[in-house]
């Protein structure tokens, strides 16, 4: 069971910080469309966050180890969630380290995943889990440090349901350490290079497929 369970509607400004957590599931589990959720600075034996609805928030500075559930950070939704997942240490997750997937159609968008360290995800499978898996939706990934464990499939896996995910400046580790590879890109319009745009330089503006 999860340590903090957020239900219902109209949830806003909830702060979960500085706790020590021992859980077989997540430190925070939310099925509410929370406005301005902060999950920061927690020391967690277990996983960090499951969300099936989410609007605006930050998950930062948490350390998590030996999670036994699907993924240490698990977003299963179809919405623009404006979520920053920053500077977390995720060690030996049983499933994916960070996992974005659709609940029914589309997946989560507007997710920033930056400066996290994810070590050896996938201990609960046999080369079936990744340090980061963007199965659906859209994310901006930058500055993450990923390393394989004995059973990690990919460092960064961008699935066919992803559209316009940006991944630049990440340290993926030795490709030979992974079961499959350090990177898999099956997404649509993934951007893996800085744009070097004559006007905006190495800053991104719109996705090539955007109107």
């Amino acid at each position: 069971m999860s340590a903090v369970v957020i239900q219902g509607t109209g949830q806003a400004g909830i702060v979960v910080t500085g706790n020590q957590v021992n859980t077989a599931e997540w430190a925070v589990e939310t099925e509410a469309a929370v406005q301005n959720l902060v999950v920061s600075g927690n020391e967690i034996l277990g996983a960090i966050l499951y969300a099936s609805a989410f609007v605006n928030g930050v998950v930062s500075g948490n350390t998590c180890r030996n999670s036994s559930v699907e993924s240490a950070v698990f977003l299963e939704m179809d919405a623009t969630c404006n979520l920053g997942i920053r500077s977390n240490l995720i060690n030996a997750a049983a499933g994916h380290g960070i996992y974005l997937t659709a609940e029914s159609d589309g997946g989560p968008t507007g997710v920033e995943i930056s400066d996290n360290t994810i070590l050896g995800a996938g201990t609960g499978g046999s080369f079936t889990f990744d340090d980061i898996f963007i199965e659906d939706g859209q994310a901006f990934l930058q500055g993450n440090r990923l390393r394989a464990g004995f059973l990690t499939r990919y460092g960064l896996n961008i699935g066919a349901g992803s559209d316009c995910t940006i991944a630049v400046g990440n340290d993926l580790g030795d490709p030979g350490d992974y079961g499959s590879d350090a990177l898999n890109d099956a997404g649509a319009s993934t951007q893996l290079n800085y744009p070097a745009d004559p006007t905006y330089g190495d800053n991104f503006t719109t996705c090539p497929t955007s109107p």
Partner: protein
Amino acid sequence: MALITGTGEIVIEGIESKVYDLEFDGVGLVINASAVDVENCILDDVTITSGSQRTNIRGNRVNAPIVLQSNNDHTLIVGNYLNPASGGG
């Protein structure tokens, strides 16, 4: 620290109530008011009812899930030891 044993639950109804230095053994804590502070307690189930806002849960040992039902704006859960599998739930 006073010990509260048995079954069922204790419901906090007063706005700006303080709950501190209590051990709940088998008894759930239900917060049904706004601006309630819960500090330095040992807790089993904790439920924050719909519409209860500005709850401050700080410095406790919590042995079951903390459940926020709805419209629980500005809830703070800070500096606790959360061990949901060890007690009630």
